[in-house]
């Protein structure tokens, strides 16, 4: 009996050993699969790769030549590029406060105005009525602050508007950099070198315009940093002669005035590729459906929320160190650009148009990149919000990105128009009520008109904005207000 059992056991063992040996010899372990490279391409023809210089630009450069006429060079034009190149070579020093536009100096301003004898003209042209303002203030209908603001803004406007400058400053041979919004001095430092010590003076100030001009009296080239409240001046290390030469050269060049009307197909973003790109570990992405029908892609820390209804993408990256870092604009903007570069989020040309301060103490800023077309910014409207990319930065790193889910895709040029001149546009605007009396900004831009779900048309338009917010848009050809 035992022998029988032994036989069976032995047989089993032998068979098992043979099986095991053959398994050992012939089988190979299952290895994890090799992951393919993943696609992070966005629509190729639109994806770009930008450097700091490409983004950090003024909205427009105005050149005042001898004849006092302003030439506006938009980004993309050779004049613009050349001028920018030249600007990178100069440096500014000896910055000091030039004018204080705050309340204390208000009377000085108005005095100056009166002294300039421009009061009436200004009043006629711009519906300015300082007296009215004074009365209004005394009557308490407007606050003192408002009055100040209005006047200082107007003053700034006056100073800035073409042809209306106090004689203290000749506008001949000057270059003016126009920005879409007030920008910190560090921003400007990225375009024009400023002495470190002087930077400190302008810290925390926002500059709306930079004007470089040749001072008639001193024969020096000076630079004005024009902000809402203050104006600072600085010296430019270039000879007047050279400067004048440059200006003459630049303004001598032709600037095309025609602008195109372009039709585009709406190109949706490739969400998958984008998510493959933004997440550190694309294989760990999970999708979560939210109640408002948006889909969140997340890997546990970062999140990419796609809202199909509103056609927005929001990317959050809360893994930014909460340790306070010093505000460093170049670094910050670099990081934002790098982010956008990496994730091929450009689709067209962009300029950093605004830097919003969320919290200086915590180093929280919002950078807004505006898409440009032919040098003109494309405005953000409800039907088409893809012109803007908002990047929230914290501690100089990207912590959030908001943009649209659509790009501009293929383009078909339909027509070209000659836009109205600014003065003409201003005249039309002036005739409207409700706008006068307050400082406003008027600039040429592209206005997106949504034709249908698939197509969008960009029309050149004059945009009226006050306090950096959009008020109205007027067709650049006809002057009609565009209503949608």
């Amino acid at each position, binding site marked *: 009996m035992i022998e029988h059992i032994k036989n069976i056991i032995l047989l089993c063992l032998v068979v098992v050993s043979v099986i095991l*040996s053959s398994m050992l*010899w012939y089988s190979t372990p299952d290895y994890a699969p090799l992951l*393919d*490279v*993943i696609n992070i*391409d966005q629509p190729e023809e639109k994806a770009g790769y930008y450097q700091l210089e490409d983004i950090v630009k003024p909205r427009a450069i105005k050149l005042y030549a001898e004849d006092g006429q302003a030439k506006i060079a938009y980004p993309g034009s050779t004049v613009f590029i050349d001028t920018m190149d030249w600007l990178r070579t100069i440096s500014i020093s000896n910055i000091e406060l030039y004018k204080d536009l705050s309340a204390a100096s208000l009377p000085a301003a108005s005095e100056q105005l009166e002294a300039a004898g421009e009061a009436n003209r200004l009043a006629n042209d711009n519906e300015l009525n300082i007296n009215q303002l004074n009365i209004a203030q005394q009557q308490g209908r407007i606050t003192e602050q408002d009055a100040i603001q209005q006047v200082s803004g107007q003053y700034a406007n006056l100073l800035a508007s073409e042809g209306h400058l106090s004689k203290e400053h000749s506008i001949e041979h000057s270059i003016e950099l126009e920005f879409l919004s007030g920008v910190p001095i560090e921003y400007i430092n990225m375009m024009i070198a400023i002495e470190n010590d002087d930077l400190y003076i302008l810290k925390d100030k926002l500059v709306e315009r930079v004007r470089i001009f040749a001072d008639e009296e001193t024969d020096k080239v000076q630079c004005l940093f024009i902000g809402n409240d203050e104006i600072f001046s600085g010296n430019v290390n270039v000879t007047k002669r050279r400067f004048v030469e440059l200006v003459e050269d630049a303004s001598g060049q032709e600037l095309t005035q025609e602008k195109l009307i372009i039709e585009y197909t709406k190109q949706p973003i490739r969400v998958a590729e984008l998510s493959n790109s933004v997440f*550190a570990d694309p294989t760990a992405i999970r999708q979560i459906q939210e109640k408002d029908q948006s889909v969140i892609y997340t890997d546990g820390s970062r999140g990419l929320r796609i809202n199909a209804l509103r056609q927005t993408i929001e990317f959050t990256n809360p893994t930014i160190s909460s340790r306070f870092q010093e505000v460093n604009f170049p670094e910050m903007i670099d990081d934002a650009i790098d982010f956008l570069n990496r994730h091929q989020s450009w689709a067209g040309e962009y300029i950093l148009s605004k830097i919003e301060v969320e919290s200086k103490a915590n180093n929280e800023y919002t950078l807004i990149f505006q898409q440009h077309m032919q040098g003109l910014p494309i405005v953000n409207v409800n039907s088409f919000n893809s012109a803007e990319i908002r990047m929230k930065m914290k501690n100089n790193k990207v912590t959030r990105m908001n943009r649209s889910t659509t790009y501009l895709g293929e383009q078909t040029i339909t027509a070209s128009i000659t836009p109205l001149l600014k003065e003409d546009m201003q005249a039309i605007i002036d005739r409207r009520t409700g706008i006068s009396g307050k400082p406003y900004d008027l600039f040429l831009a592209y206005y997106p008109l949504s034709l249908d779900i698939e197509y969008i048309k960009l029309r050149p338009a004059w945009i009226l904005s006050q306090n950096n917010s959009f008020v109205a848009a007027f067709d650049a050809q006809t002057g009609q207000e565009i209503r949608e």
Partner: protein
Amino acid sequence: MVVYLLMILFAMQLIGLYFMKSLEDYHMQNNTENIHSQANVLADLLERYFIETQEQERDLDTLVRDFSKQMRADIQVIDVNGIVISDSNHPEFVGQRNVQVEVTRALLGAKGEAIRTEQETGFRIKIFATPIKVHNEVVGVVYIASSLEPIYKTLKEVNTLISTATIIVLAISSVLVIIMARTITSPLVDVTKKATEMAKGNFDQQVIVHSDDEIGELGLAFNQLTYRLKGALEDNQKEKQRLEAILNNMSDGVIATDSDGKILLINPTAQKMIGISEEKAMIKNILDILEIEELKRHWFELKERVAFQTIIEHNASLYQVVVSPLKDTDTIAYGILIIMHDITEREQLEQQRKEFVANVSHELRTPLTTIRSYVEALVEGADEDPEIRHRFTGVIQTETERMIRLVTDLLELSQLDAHNTLWNFQRMDINEIIEEVFDRFQVQLENKELVGNLSLAEGKVYVLADRDRIDQVLNNLLSNAVKYTSEGTVTVESQVIWESNKRLVEVRIIDTGMGIPPKDVSRIFERFYRVDKARSRDMGGTGLGLSISKQIIRAHKGDISVKSVVNKGTTVYFSLPVHEEAHHD
């Protein structure tokens, strides 16, 4: 033999295992080292590409491609964000993202290494990622994917080789083992078979010895054993047969019993003596079949006793019985041996002898007494009277004559007994002798007024005989016939008869006398036997006549017998072989 095969299987598996493992390890190690070193070299070389500008990209591609050709592997150069900058074999991957875990590790600064399976082809790929560092900062990753399939292919081929080798080795070995094993087992089987035969009793088996080793010696020993055993058994058998023959042919009876008296052995003589067959005896106890008093009485002491003798009577025979215990090594009696010697005849003879001596003494003493008394009388004075003297001496003479006759007869009988008689056999005609004797008795017949007849066979009937003796016989017979016949006839006949293919001549003496009672008929040829003692003596007989006649006839190779009816007559026959004429003495 299965054991050997299993051992081989075990060995081959072990060998195969370690060999395969070593081979695999060696190849993989080799491959890994190669990849490592090449990757490190490439990483070092690529450092400068990351420091300088993008114009180097084309050179980067060439470098990568060169390395890839040399290593026969796919090489990718990856930047800090995981994007492929250059790919040696798949330029379409440039700009895409490499998401292997190993790349993540390398981007953190560690080396990553793994084996993965390619999804479409199922090939096994070894991937290795090493960081490219510039000033201790990771700027990129070198990623190498090398197919292991060539190695696996080689290994598989070797695997197959070893497997086939194993199977072939196993097959050949099993055949060899079976053959070899036979050399051990077949002789053993042979020996076993022959031993079995031997156990059955067949001793003629011989094992064929093939080899010189232990198996051979076993065979030789076996053969010797067979031979000796055979001899021993034969001897045993012979001994047994001898013993049996002795026992069976002994004139004495032998009975062996066990210690309880149960009969183990009883030889045919004993069976006859006791009158019981073997089967019946074997189940009986000795005490049942033989009445041995001592046995009955001293049975339990038998063990102590030595042999004893006794005489018993059984079935009207007398036996001398020797009873001895069968002792095993002088201590334990395991049985009894009984030897029965038939002494009936001896006793009888003893009895006869005693009788004979008594008779002779008596026969001699009677005349002697007579003589003595007459002599005494003479001595005492009877010799004075001449007539008494004459009468007395006459009696003395007669008596003396009787005694002399008696002694002469005795002497003759003794001589005949001892076969010391000198015979004078001659060829003669029996009828002639008969006639002669007959004539001699005519006077006696006439005296007693008896009629004498003679009826002889025709012609001459030759026999080989001693004339005197035959004469004596006839004389005796006729004398008796005349003596005991008071009236009637006395006839003498001779006849040739055939008996048992032999020619015999029968001679009959027939008288019509008083006859012999039946109880005495068989005994009349005994010595000194007288039917009527008184009468014979008176007639002067010694009582030995017929005995002598019987001896003489016997010596002539004949027979003598008697028939008688009381008061009617007696016929005495005797026969002699006829002497054929063809024989010449």
